[in-house]
C-alpha cells in the first residue's frame, strides 16, 4: 500500500514538475489512504481542519484525525452513535451530527482527545428504528445550521419506548418509510440564537446537504417509495419535497394520515426535484454534494457540483442553471471507474485542492476506506456544461471535438426523453420513454459548443443525451463520459 502511494506521489510530483511542458497521462490520480489497524473504516463524515489535517468519523463511533504529511492517524473522540455529519469549528472543536443529537465536541485541555460532548439539539424523536440516520450540519452565510432527519424504515419497527410524541398517522402500508415521531423526514434549521425551525418536509433518505456558492440549500434524496429515481432538491423554507410521512408534523396539516390523501393532491403539494439522477444510469444512491472550487485544478468545471454515489465506482457531476427563476440542470458521471471504489459516501476538499472520498457500506452495497483524487494538468475531454435553449440544448465541451470522417452527428448522438412515476411503490420504471428527433446540429465556437435543435422541449421530462465515440480535435481522446441527463422543470 505504502509503495503504491509513494509511486503515485512520485508520478504526481513528476507531473507537477513538468506541468508547463508536458501533459500528464491521466486527468485524475487516485490514491488509497492507509487506514489504522483495527478500524472498521465505514466513513460516516469527512472534513478538513484549518491546519490541513483530515478529520474522519466512522460508523462505530470513532472520530480520528489524519496528518497527510506524517501519514499518521490519531484518535480524537469515541462512543458516538453513527456520526454521519460534521462541521469543523476549529482544530479543537467540531459540531457532530449523530443518531440521537447534534453534539458540540471539544478538546478543552489540549491533550488531543475530546473531553466535552455538549448537546446542541436533541429535540427530535427517535423510535429505535435502525434507519433513523441524521445528516448535516451545514451552515449558511447568516450562520444558520441545517440538519436532515431520515424517515424510519419499514425494514425495521418501532420500539416499545420512543423519544418524542408518537403519532401513528405518519405510518403508511407495506414498504412505506414512516414518520411517527417529530420531524422524521424533515430538514431542521437552527439559528445562531439557538431557535429551532422545522424548515422543510417530505424527505425519505436525505444523505447529503450543501450550502452552495449562492447560499442555496441543496439536499439529495434516495430512490425508494415516493422517490421514483434519486433526487437533488433546492430546498426552501416551508417546502414539501414529496415523501408524505413527514407531513404529519407540519403545523398546517390537519388531514390525518397523509398516505390516505389522493396522490394527485400530494403531487400538487410537492416541490419537484431540481435534478433527477436516472436510476441504473447515473446513480442509485447519491450522497453528499460539494462545489468544485478554485484550486482543485478543475477550473473547467468550477462552480458545478460533485455528488458521491454509493452503488457504483463513480461520482456524479451536476451542472445547474437558473431558468425563469427555477434552479434546474443536468447530471453526468464523474471519474467513473479509474480505480475509484464504490460506497462514495462523503467528500472533502483538502487545502491543496485534492478531493478526498470517504467510503462506507454498512450492510448495503459499498466499500470502506478513504481515497484521494488529484486532478492533473491534463484536462479531460468531457461535456463541460449544458444549457437549456428555447428549442433544445447547448452542449459545451472542455475541448473542441471532431466528427469522424464519413459519419454525421446524428449517428453518434441520441436523445431519449422520459419521466418517473410519483407513487407509493418502491422506485419507478421510466414512463413515456421515447426517442427524440434532433432536427439540427450546429457546431459553434471552434467546435467547443454544439447546439441541438429539437421540435419542442417538454417540462417535466428528463432528456437523456448519449454521445458515442466523439473525438477531441486533433487528439485520440474519446469523450470521457457519454451520458448527460437534463431534468427540464421549466422550459425557456
Amino acid at each position, binding site marked *: 500500500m505504502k509503495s503504491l502511494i509513494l509511486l503515485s506521489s512520485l508520478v504526481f510530483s513528476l507531473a507537477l514538475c513538468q506541468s508547463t511542458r508536458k501533459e500528464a497521462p491521466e486527468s485524475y490520480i487516485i490514491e488509497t489512504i492507509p487506514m*489504522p*489497524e*483495527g*478500524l*472498521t473504516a465505514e466513513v460516516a463524515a469527512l472534513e478538513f481542519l484549518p491546519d490541513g489535517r483530515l478529520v474522519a468519523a466512522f*460508523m*462505530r*463511533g*470513532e472520530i*480520528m484525525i489524519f496528518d497527510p504529511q506524517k501519514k499518521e492517524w490519531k*484518535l480524537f473522540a*469515541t*462512543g458516538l*452513535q*453513527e456520526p454521519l455529519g460534521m462541521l469543523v469549528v476549529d482544530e479543537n472543536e467540531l459540531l457532530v451530527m*449523530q*443518531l*440521537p*443529537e447534534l*453534539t*458540540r465536541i471539544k478538546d478543552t485541555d489540549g491533550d488531543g*482527545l*475530546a*473531553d*466535552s*460532548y*455538549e*448537546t446542541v439539539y*436533541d429535540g427530535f424523536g*427517535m*423510535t*429505535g*428504528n*435502525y*434507519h*433513523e440516520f441524521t445528516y448535516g450540519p451545514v451552515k449558511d452565510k447568516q450562520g444558520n445550521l441545517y440538519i436532515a432527519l431520515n424517515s424510519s*424504515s*419499514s*425494514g*425495521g*419497527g418501532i420500539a416499545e*419506548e*420512543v*423519544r418524542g410524541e408518537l403519532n401513528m398517522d405518519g405510518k403508511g402500508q407495506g*414498504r412505506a418509510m414512516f414518520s411517527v415521531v417529530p420531524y422524521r423526514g424533515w430538514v431542521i434549521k437552527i439559528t445562531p440564537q439557538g431557535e429551532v425551525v422545522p424548515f422543510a418536509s417530505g424527505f425519505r433518505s436525505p444523505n447529503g446537504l450543501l450550502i452552495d456558492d449562492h447560499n442555496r440549500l441543496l439536499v439529495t434524496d434516495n430512490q425508494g417509495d415516493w422517490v421514483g429515481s434519486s433526487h437533488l432538491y433546492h430546498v426552501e423554507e416551508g417546502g414539501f419535497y414529496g415523501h408524505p410521512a413527514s407531513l404529519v408534523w407540519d403545523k398546517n396539516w390537519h388531514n390525518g394520515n397523509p398516505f390516505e390523501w389522493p396522490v394527485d393532491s400530494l403531487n400538487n403539494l410537492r416541490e419537484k426535484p431540481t435534478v433527477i439522477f*436516472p*436510476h*441504473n*444510469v447515473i446513480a*442509485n444512491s447519491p450522497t453528499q454534494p460539494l462545489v468544485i472550487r478554485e484550486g482543485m485544478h478543475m477550473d473547467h468545471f468550477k462552480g458545478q457540483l460533485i455528488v458521491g454515489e454509493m*452503488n*457504483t465506482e463513480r461520482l456524479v457531476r451536476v451542472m445547474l442553471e437558473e431558468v425563469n427563476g427555477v434552479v434546474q440542470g443536468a447530471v453526468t458521471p464523474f471519474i467513473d471507474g479509474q480505480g475509484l471504489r*464504490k460506497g462514495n459516501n462523503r467528500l472533502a476538499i483538502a487545502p491543496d485542492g485534492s478531493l478526498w472520498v470517504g467510503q462506507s457500506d*454498512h*450492510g*448495503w*452495497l459499498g466499500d470502506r476506506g478513504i481515497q484521494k483524487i488529484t486532478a492533473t494538468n491534463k484536462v479531460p475531454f468531457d461535456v463541460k456544461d449544458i444549457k437549456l435553449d428555447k428549442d433544445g440544448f447547448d452542449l459545451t465541451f472542455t475541448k473542441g471535438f471532431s466528427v469522424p470522417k464519413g459519419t454525421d452527428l446524428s449517428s453518434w448522438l441520441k436523445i431519449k426523453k422520459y419521466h418517473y412515476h410519483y407513487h407509493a411503490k*418502491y422506485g419507478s*420504471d*421510466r414512463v413515456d420513454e421515447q426517442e427524440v428527433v434532433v432536427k439540427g446540429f450546429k457546431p459553434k465556437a471552434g467546435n467547443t459548443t454544439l447546439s441541438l435543435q429539437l421540435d419542442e422541449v417538454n417540462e417535466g421530462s428528463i432528456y437523456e443525451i448519449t454521445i458515442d465515440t466523439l473525438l477531441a480535435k486533433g487528439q485520440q481522446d474519446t469523450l470521457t463520459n457519454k451520458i448527460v441527463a437534463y431534468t427540464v422543470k421549466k422550459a425557456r
Partner: protein
Amino acid sequence: MNVVVEFFLYRNIIRIFLNANKKMNMYFDLSIKPLRWCAILVFVSVLLLPKAPMAQQKALEIDMTVLPGLQFSLPRFHVKPGQQVKLKFKNTDDMDHNFLIVKPGKREGVVSKALALGAEGPKQNYVPKGDDVLWHTVTLHDGQSEVLTFIAPKEEGVYPYVCTLPGHGFVMYGAMYVNSTGKMPPIEKDNNIPPNRQKAEAGHDHAHHQSHPYALKAPYLYRTYVEGAGPAAIAVHLPAQLSYCWDAGVCKLRFAWQGDFLDNTAIWKGHKDARSVILGDVFYREDKRAVLGIGDVAQEKPRFKGYKIVDGGYPEFHYVINGVDVFELIKELKNGGGVVRSFRIPQLKDQVRFAYTPTDAVRYYYEGKELSTDILELSAQAGKQFAVEVRMSN
C-alpha cells in the same frame, strides 16, 4: 410415523452421516443455523433413500433467505443430479433482491449482462436474456418470497446462484453442488463461494476481531440502542466488570449489570432493528419515573445537556431539572460490589429528593448508613453535592 421418533431417528442418522463424512473428507456446513436443519433433514432423508423410485421421492426443500451485508443465508448447498428441488427464496433484507441459478462458470458473465441492461433492468427483473440462466425469481421486496421448483441438472458440476441487482452480483452469490456423492470441498477452501463465507465456523470468531483501532480500557462508553432503555441510551463500561445504561432521553440511570459489557456484532451491521446485547447480569433496574425532584413545583421533563469526560475517563452527565443544572457521575465501588452515584447541583436553593427502587438484589447507602425507604430527602445545603452507594446484596 411419529414425528418425534422420526426426528430422533434422523438426528442419529445425521450424526452417523456427519462422522462418516468427516472421515471421507466431506463436509457439511456447520455454520448453518439450527432452523436450516429442517432443510438438511429433508436433504439427508433423500440421500438415505437412494433406491426409492423417483416418482415417490419427496422434493428436496431448501430455504434461502438474506443476511445483512448482501449475503445469501446459505453460502452453498448440495443436490443430486436429476433430483426434484423446491427452493424457497425469501427476501429478508431491506433491499430488493432476486435469485438466479446459472450454468457452471457463467456467474460473472450473467452479472455483467444484467448490469448492461441499465434502465431496462427493472422491467426484466435484472435477468438477462440467453440460456445461461437456468432458473430465476422476479425481483423481490423485503418480506416477499418465491418458490423455484425444478429438477436438478443431470450433468454434475458447480452451479452458481446469484442476485443480479446492480452491483449485488459481485458479492452476493453461492454455489449449488450437483453430484451424486455429496462431495463439496472444505468450506475454507471453496472458491465458489464469497471470500467472507469461507469460514469453517462462521459466527464464532467475532470475539477475536478488534472492534476499534485502539485497546478498550474501562471506563468507556457507547451511545447505542439497548433493550430496556429508550433509544437515546448511553451504555458505560466501568472497571471491575461493572456496566450501566444511562438514558439521555429521560436523564436517568436505567439499569446496571455485572459481567462483560456489550455485544455489538448485530447492531454494527446496521439493519433490522438490532440492539446492543448485554453480556452480564442486571443487578439493578430503575423503575422510578423521576429520580431527582427539585423544589415543590411540578416537575418539568429534564433536558439533557451532554457530558464531560472527567478524571479517570468517566463521563459526568449534565442535565437540567426545573431550570437547575444537575451533574451526575457514576463509578464502580472499589471492591467491585456495586456502584456509587454522585450528584452535583451547585445552584440548589430548595430541598432535593432522590428516589430509587428498593430490591432484594441491592442495598442503598448514604453517608455510610443504609437507606430503608425508597426516597432520600436532603436540604439545599446537603443536596448541593451528595453520593449514594448501590451495593449488591450477595
